[in-house]
């Protein structure tokens, strides 16, 4: 861990601090990147690294790290952050650690500062949240704090940029000192602290706090400076804990948000508004995307004609990708609302409210945010569960996250529901979707409690269950930040899912188009349109996909499906949303001139089992498909991240086996049950 700055090495500045201390806001300011500031403790799971903006004219790397309470970690999340602080795998030991300290609660935050100083890091203290301290009528003396702790202390308002210049000159000075130093300073790890040492630390911090915090002068002109100082210290001595009162507004709002009755109402209303806006607000935007892609596909058709490459472009590429991008508005809205809720401080209250019921089924209040994120995408959700300190609860949370109905399932549900109900009844559609969501939540509760019962077999871990969570002061969420954050999330998502969807669309196109790409049909007495349609079905019936499908047909029959749906279901194991594009390719035998969704719907209505008049898509089989999608773990990326986060194959393999068998069995029961009651 020896380290010395030479001319060729770019200095590394790490930003450390407790959760909610304003780290990320400072990082954004220095890096110019618009990352989000998280209000939910510990949710900066991943690191952000960047160069300091050129306008600040310092050549240094800057690293944002997850919030830590202590250098002695108590969760995997913290352990990672602590280890990375001591020696980043790629960048080594940070040359300077800028530690953010919430001025409105400095005693708690100075605890980490002391540990950092004891570890012999080169520390610069940044005081944040001064507005909260001022609201309480107090101020803090940075010069005194600097004198006591023997390091630079700078007051900052990251939003307005006040104090940034001072911080930069302090950074420059520190870099300069390091360059001139001959001997290098070695960093030492903090040994685990016993109770006595810990309390000694805190009592020293108490003295520091009393020295540096002082009441704000109301009428400074009337008093002589010296008398005033004496008065101030008297006030502090007499009311040593006045500045330790939390934010007044937050206390008042919590009386409502955590109220036994109103709290529950607010919680459910928030969830309801969130999910209904995902469906209703998104609808017109989705139509727009849908029309844009039909236009592109039609244009490609008319320019390239009925040739193999024309087909490849219009059906393989454009329709395939388009049928998936249709649900982008829904993802955007979900990310936006989650961001706003997180920023406002509401999510931490939600976690507190739901801790008790979740602990009954072996989960934790801290499972709430990961589970909620699971409605967007299981991958970030599983990563977010690192904040759960208890291994059993973390594994159980990871286990059931795939049951949260992720946004990739929305296009699948959308098309299946559209098939079930007439289009003018959008309300019924929304209702069915709500039922699907409630059903999947209820199933996850049942599955979680069953798995928890047999946790010795499934999770193999049983350590202390704990829920300690800071409820941060309420803040007005910044719309601009939430919007930029929404776009960066959506962009990441598209770049991750997009290529997979494109490749699979092309592969499925190839499988359905070859080898008999120009089939011979008897066209006597038929219109040109009918000939095209005949050719298409002949081509698919003799394609590679058909051969592949025949192999799996025996498995598909019991749930009322044929090989074509089977091929689509196999394709979904790469990503669920591929189901729609794959159906579009396999079933879209005629181009009726409608938009993508409608022509797929009419193709589904006309689809029959080969050489028979029996319809494939009926109410029973469509309902069966929906049930299948609620449970089946059809996402390789989820399996991969589950493997990574649990450190073994046991959990992901169990997930695949358990969820896919439940999916198949319940789909079977649904289809045959409905048929038994005469619903076909």
């Amino acid at each position, binding site marked *: 861990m020896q380290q010395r700055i030479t001319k060729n090495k770019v200095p590394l500045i790490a930003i450390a601090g407790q959760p909610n201390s304003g780290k990320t806001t400072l990082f954004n300011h220095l890096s110019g990147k618009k990352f989000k500031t998280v209000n939910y403790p510990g949710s900066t799971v991943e690191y952000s690294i960047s160069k300091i903006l050129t306008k600040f004219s310092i050549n240094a790397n800057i690293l944002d790290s997850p919030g830590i*309470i*202590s250098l*002695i970690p*108590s969760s995997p999340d913290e352990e990672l952050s602590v280890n990375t602080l001591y020696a980043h795998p790629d960048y080594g030991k940070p040359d300077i650690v800028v530690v953010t300290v*919430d001025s*409105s*609660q*400095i*005693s*708690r935050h100075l*605890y980490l500062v002391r540990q950092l100083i004891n570890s012999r890091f080169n520390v610069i203290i940044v005081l944040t949240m001064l507005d909260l301290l001022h609201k309480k009528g107090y101020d803090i003396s940075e010069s005194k704090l600097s004198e006591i702790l023997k390091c630079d202390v700078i007051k900052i308002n990251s939003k307005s940029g006040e104090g940034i210049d001072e911080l930069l000159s302090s950074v420059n000075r520190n870099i300069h000192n390091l360059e001139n130093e001959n001997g290098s300073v070695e960093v030492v790890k903090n040994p685990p602290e016993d*109770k006595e040492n*810990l*309390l000694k630390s*805190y*009592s020293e911090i108490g003295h520091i706090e009393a020295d540096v915090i002082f009441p704000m002068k109301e009428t400074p002109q009337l008093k002589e400076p010296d008398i005033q100082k004496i008065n101030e210290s008297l006030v502090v001595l007499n009311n040593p*804990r006045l*500045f*330790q*009162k*939390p934010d007044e507004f*937050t*206390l008042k709002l*919590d*009386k409502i948000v*955590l109220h*036994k*009755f109103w*709290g*529950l109402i607010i919680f459910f209303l928030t969830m309801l508004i969130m999910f209904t806006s995902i469906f209703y607000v998104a609808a017109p935007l989705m139509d727009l995307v849908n029309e844009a892609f039909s236009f592109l596909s039609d244009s490609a058709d008319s320019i390239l004609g009925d040739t193999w490459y024309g087909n490849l472009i219009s059906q393989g590429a454009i329709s395939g990708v388009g049928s998936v991008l249709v649900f982008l508005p829904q993802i955007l809205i979900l990310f936006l609302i989650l961001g706003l809720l997180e920023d406002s401080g509401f999510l*931490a209250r939600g976690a*507190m*409210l739901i*801790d*008790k*019921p979740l*602990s009954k089924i072996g989960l934790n*209040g801290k499972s709430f945010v990961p589970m909620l994120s699971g409605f967007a995408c299981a991958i970030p959700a599983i990563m977010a569960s690192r904040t759960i300190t208890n291994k059993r609860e973390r594994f159980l949370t990871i286990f059931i996250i795939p049951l949260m109905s992720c946004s990739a399932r929305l296009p699948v549900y959308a098309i299946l529901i559209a098939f079930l109900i007439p289009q003018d009844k959008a309300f019924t559609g929304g209702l069915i979707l709500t039922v699907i969501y409630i059903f999947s939540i209820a199933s996850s509760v049942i599955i979680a409690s069953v798995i928890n019962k047999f946790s010795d077999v499934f999770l193999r871990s049983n350590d*202390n269950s*704990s*829920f*300690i*969570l*800071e*409820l*941060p*002061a309420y803040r007005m969420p910044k719309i601009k930040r939430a919007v930029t954050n929404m776009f960066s999330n959506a962009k990441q998502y598209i770049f991750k899912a997009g290529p997979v969807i494109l490749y699979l669309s092309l592969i499925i196109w190839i499988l359905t188009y070859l080898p008999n790409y120009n089939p011979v049909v008897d066209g006597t007495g038929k219109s040109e349109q009918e000939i095209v349609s005949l050719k298409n079905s002949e081509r698919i019936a003799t394609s590679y996909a058909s051969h592949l499908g025949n192999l799996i047909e025996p498995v598909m029959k019991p749930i009322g499906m044929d090989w074509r749906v089977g091929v689509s279901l196999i394709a979904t194991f790469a990503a669920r949303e591929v189901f729609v594009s794959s159906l579009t390719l396999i079933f879209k035998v005629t181009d009726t001139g409608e938009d993508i969704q409608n022509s797929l719907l009419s193709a589904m209505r006309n689809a029959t089992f080969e050489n028979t008049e029996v319809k494939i898509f009926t109410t029973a089989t469509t309902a069966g498909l929906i049930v299948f999608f609620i449970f089946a773990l059809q996402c390789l990326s989820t399996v991969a991240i589950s493997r990574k986060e649990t450190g073994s194959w046991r959990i992901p393999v169990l997930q695949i086996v358990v969820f896919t068998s439940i999916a198949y069995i319940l789909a079977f029961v649904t289809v045959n049950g409905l048929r038994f009651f005469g619903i076909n």
Partner: protein
Amino acid sequence: MLKTEHYDLMRTAADMKIGEKAIIEDIDNSHPSSHRLMEIGFTPGQEIVMLNKTVFNDPISFSIRGTIIAIRKNEAVSIII
């Protein structure tokens, strides 16, 4: 220092009423969460105010050192007042 067996007889943070203030007397070392509780500021001599309970009476939120922290009832019992 007090011995563990005597803690049963003592009042803890879990017994506090909404709005009640108290000074922490000691932290029960034998509780698995005790170290983390002390690290986040629940130290003997520190004043806490009980703020809210959820509809299920658990967890409980406390005002401490300028912020609000929610902990479970079974963790609050390790905070002797």
